[in-house]
């Protein structure tokens, strides 16, 4: 369940090897730190904003929190092309399903659609996705679909190359029953710590809160991030 590899020459088992021409090897990677937390009444999701091609930052203000439906978002990490294509496909499928049902879709349905695609094409794709949202049946939910295509629901989930640096922080600081504001601060602090230590994460911190009432998006600029000890 390793975080996605930041380096563009990263490993697919079957396709990419030394024999493939070099221009086919370069992928735009979302390096990344992504995170999602459940609270009573909704979810708080967050991501950094850096997209890299090798050592060059292709986009320093990327939005990795992608809407899939009115109350369902996904956080993307891994290959930018793969995750954008998957998100577009799932958005279409979920929208169609929701019209058929004549009801807002379940977060679990969206997560399953991601899992189907990520598992079926696991050899070809490099995508680590966190699906989070709110629905009437189960409230706020976070499902993680890491590389390989596993699906599991977690109250808090981190992903991307920067996640490795904050597992300890998350495990020690998460408590169940946090309020929305506490969750926002928790996510902002975790993202900050990851962005400080991971070269492939950085830029601004994007946060979003999804509840029954709707959606609230926030951006925390670099100089407004919480301050920690720095040597």
């Amino acid at each position, binding site marked *: 369940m390793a975080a996605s590899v930041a380096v563009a020459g990263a490993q697919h088992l079957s396709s990419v090897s030394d*024999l493939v021409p070099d*221009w086919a090897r370069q992928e735009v990677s979302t390096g990344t730190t992504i995170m999602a937390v459940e609270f009573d009444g909704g979810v708080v999701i967050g991501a950094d904003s850096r997209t890299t091609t090798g050592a060059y930052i292709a986009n320093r203000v990327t939005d990795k929190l992608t809407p899939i439906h009115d109350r369902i978002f996904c956080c993307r990490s891994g290959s930018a092309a793969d995750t954008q294509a998957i998100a577009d496909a799932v958005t279409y499928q979920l929208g169609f399903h929701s019209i058929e049902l004549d009801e807002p879709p379940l977060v679990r349905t969206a997560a399953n659609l991601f899992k189907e695609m990520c598992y079926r*094409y696991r050899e070809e794709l490099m995508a680590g996705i966190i699906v989070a949202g709110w629905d009437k049946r189960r409230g706020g939910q976070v499902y993680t679909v890491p590389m390989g295509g596993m699906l599991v629901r977690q109250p808090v989930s981190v992903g991307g190359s920067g996640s490795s640096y904050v597992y300890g922080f998350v495990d020690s600081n998460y408590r169940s029953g946090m309020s929305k504001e506490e969750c926002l601060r928790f996510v902002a602090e975790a993202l900050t710590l990851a962005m400080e230590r991971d070269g492939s994460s950085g830029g601004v911190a994007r946060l979003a809160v999804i509840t029954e009432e709707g959606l609230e998006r926030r951006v925390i600029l670099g100089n407004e991030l919480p301050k920690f000890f720095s040597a």
Partner: protein
Amino acid sequence: MMNIDQRPCESQRGGFSFENSRRNAMLEENLSKLGYSAPKARKTGTTIAGIMYKDGVILGADTRATDDMVVADKNCMKIHYIAPNIYCCGAGVAADAEITTQMMASNVELHSLSTGRPPMVVTVTRQLKQLLFRYQGHIGSSLIVGGVDATGTHLYSIYPHGSTDKLPYLTMGAALHSVFSLSLSTDRSGAAAAMSVFEDRYKPNMELKEAKTLVRDAIAAGIFCDLGSGSNVDLCVITKAGVEYLRGYDQPAQKGRKQGEYKYKPGTTAVLTKTVTPLSLDLVEEAVHLMDTK
């Protein structure tokens, strides 16, 4: 590629097979052992850029096309027509960028006739990204699409693997070499040089004159600081009112002029000795052919 009906264990029936790219790479390896090399695809090296300004978008590009380290075309056109209100700069493999944009122009016109509406930038972008993703990066074209449509002004960048970014200012270059390569700046082509100009001087809602100067300076930075970019700056200004295609807007890199006269007068070198040896030749045959110089 994205065939929903397949099981993972079945061998791939439909969709694309990329077996040939592996075969080609092996063939090239074998050829190089014998001392030959397969013909290389011509890349446009390239610096391309786009910005959104007060009334629309401005796209800019250099005009050099390279064949490895030789300039193949000193004045090629990298800003391609897609629709009357949408243009696209192409970097990477020259043929890929050219054909892809031509195909898009046709598709967009058909789509526009079918919907009865003028085309939208987001339509072009989505069709391009889905095409490039389908080919998994084997179509080596990096594109900047810009235009003004009924919903407003838009500027997108599209990478060879099919990812897109929507930003107010963008630069692109040829496809990167491996991340392990040491000389990143030449591999990235002129994009980094152009981006540094943008990051310094871009402001939202600039006036036309200032915006044109900014794009020209960014492309010039690419021309001077990158071996794969050169010759002239082309600009394309797209507004709601129409398009102004400025081919050869600026020529920052003029061919150097000789500073002085470097010919020597006859007699500069003193003659010390002179020996004449006549060669005895017999005239065998004489034929006169008139050249048609009309």
